[in-house]
């Protein structure tokens, strides 16, 4: 149980490791998407290139943006970038670090898609089948066909069942050729990405490691501070709601006592605690009135002074109750502006 809680807390506490998890899931999702997607080459001269390149490039772009959208840090980055300076200076190195780390993670799923697409070969076959070198691979001396006709015939290479240019160039030969080029491109792409990743990881400590450590620390700090602020606000809202509701019920019971002041309450001495727990509501009529009043006339967001030192009206008028864990400066910059 403790171990589980520890793992859970580890993932939650560190946004980066959480993002690593999401990143891995997205990479798997991208391979799954590719295998589930039914590639359907149009086999028409101009459409082939558009379709093939579209399938090669549009989904990676979508996955890249999705990597940003799913990353909670993006709004944190934008917030940190756009906030007024106030009493806390801004460090552009921290912003750059956050952006780079987000971009690196977001690049993984698109790279996986592109590699899988190239290694599979259907995309390149569809896109470049009209550019196959007929002179070297096939029978170029086909006098009856015009250029346009040849293009139309070549465009049907990916569609075996409607291919009618066997005399011009054998379907098998063309497909094999294109596939071979596609796979070579795919492996080169994977090699290039891996070398880049290796260089980035191994060369970084050689340049400004101290500055890097500082940026990393402060970016984690901003993340944790924001989470703690949200948690503290939620805690505060809970306590506020509890006291508000308690005072509502107390108010109701005071009103009742005032209304029925000619009937003394016959509560026995030792029923104090029970009566308190019953919030002064001891019959159906009173409860119905309480429920009706809760809907028709909700209590104001203003806790009475004896219970809470400072009240809090709507729209942030006045100072909200501050907590020791929340830095005063941050509160001032968010609340005192209204």
């Amino acid at each position, binding site marked *: 149980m403790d171990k589980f809680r520890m793992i859970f807390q580890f993932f939650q506490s560190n946004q980066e490791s959480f993002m690593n998890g999401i990143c891995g899931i997205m990479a798997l999702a991208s391979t799954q998407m590719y295998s589930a997607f039914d590639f359907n080459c149009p086999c028409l001269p101009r459409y082939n290139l558009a*379709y093939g390149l579209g399938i090669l490039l549009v989904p990676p772009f979508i996955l890249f943006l999705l990597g940003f*959208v799913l990353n909670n840090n993006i709004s944190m980055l934008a917030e940190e970038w756009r906030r007024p300076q106030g009493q806390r200076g801004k460090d552009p190195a921290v912003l750059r670090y956050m952006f780079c780390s987000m971009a690196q993670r977001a690049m993984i799923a698109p790279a996986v898609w592109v590699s899988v697409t190239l290694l599979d070969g259907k995309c390149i076959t569809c896109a470049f089948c009209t550019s196959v070198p007929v002179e070297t691979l096939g029978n170029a001396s086909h006098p009856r066909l015009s250029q346009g006709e040849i293009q139309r015939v070549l465009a049907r290479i990916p569609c075996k069942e409607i291919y009618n240019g066997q005399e011009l160039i054998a379907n098998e030969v063309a497909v094999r050729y294109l596939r071979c080029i596609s796979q070579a491109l795919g492996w080169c792409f994977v090699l290039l990405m891996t070398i880049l990743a290796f260089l980035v990881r191994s060369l970084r400590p050689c340049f400004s490691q101290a500055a890097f450590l500082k940026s990393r620390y402060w970016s984690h700090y901003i993340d944790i501070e924001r989470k703690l602020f949200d948690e503290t*606000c939620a805690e505060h809202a809970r306590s506020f709601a*509890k006291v508000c509701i308690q005072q509502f019920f107390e108010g109701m019971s005071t009103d009742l006592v005032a209304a029925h002041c000619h009937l003394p309450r016959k509560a026995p001495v030792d029923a104090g605690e029970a009566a308190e727990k019953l919030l002064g509501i*001891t019959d*159906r009529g009173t*409860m119905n009135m309480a429920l009706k009043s*809760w809907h028709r006339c909700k209590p*104001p967001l203003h806790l009475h002074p004896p219970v809470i030192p400072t009240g809090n009206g709507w729209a942030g008028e006045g100072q909200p109750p501050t907590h020791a864990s929340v830095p005063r400066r941050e509160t001032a910059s968010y609340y005192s502006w209204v």
Partner: protein
Amino acid sequence: MDRFRMIFQYFQSSSESVMNGICGLLALASVKMYSSFDFSCPCLPQYNMAYSLGIMFVPPIILFLCGLILNRQSLVMLEEWRRPQGRRKKDLAAIRYMCSSIMQRAMVAPVVWIIVTLLDGKCLICAFSGSMDPEKFVGFANVSPVQVQQLLAKVPCKDDELMGNNTSRKAVSRYLRCWSQALGWSILLILIIAAFLARWLRPCFNQATLLQARHWSNYIDIEQKIFEETCCEHSRLFAHKCILHFFESMRQEIKLHSFSRPREGEGVEGKEDLLWGITDQDQVNKLLKGWYYEKPPLDVSQVTQR
């Protein structure tokens, strides 16, 4: 058991994560629904378009409504919007925030359905095969217009004897599928760009107001939950008191009827307290009958403490 409680509490504590979970489940359900649905194009000139556009648009509406129904926050928002002002002003910014977050989450599953439909292609092939230009495809060029419509309408049906192996049918099918997939990917791209811009640009405008709206919408949600919990607690205590009062009055009645029987000493008296003086079958039956025929009034203001 502890583990479940912890996970449960984690999800419950943040109603946003509950809603995200529901939203994801609905999206998965929509993909599963589409793959298990047996799309069967009627292959008749007038019916094709109606059937396929129906399949493309009616389930998303259903999924959207499901997304609204399953989201607890929609009720909270409606209640906050429609309640009388009373002593508490209404915060329109919080209501707007809740509304937009509910809408965004409810839109995910319908959008997933539409995109999966477009990427699959069957719907669009069925809808627009009749609107194709027969001149573009060799097999349909020299046929009379009426027959052309019939043949084009049969394009989505692969098992048709007439059109099954026709290469022109396959060409039309491929062409429409290509457009359908291009449309699907384009819509997905536009939506993702919109989501990205929304997330990136939101903190640039009115961040302070947004934080306030978010806080107060969260507050309204929590307050509602705590009110319900308090009412539950109260009704528990109320019921307890009511039943105690009922048993006590039963005991008084029994004492009155059996006042001639001498008391049997302190030790037994202690035991009898737990049994409320009800010690034989007849008395129990009388108690149960009394509970059914004459439930006690909902008023514990005069009850004496035990």
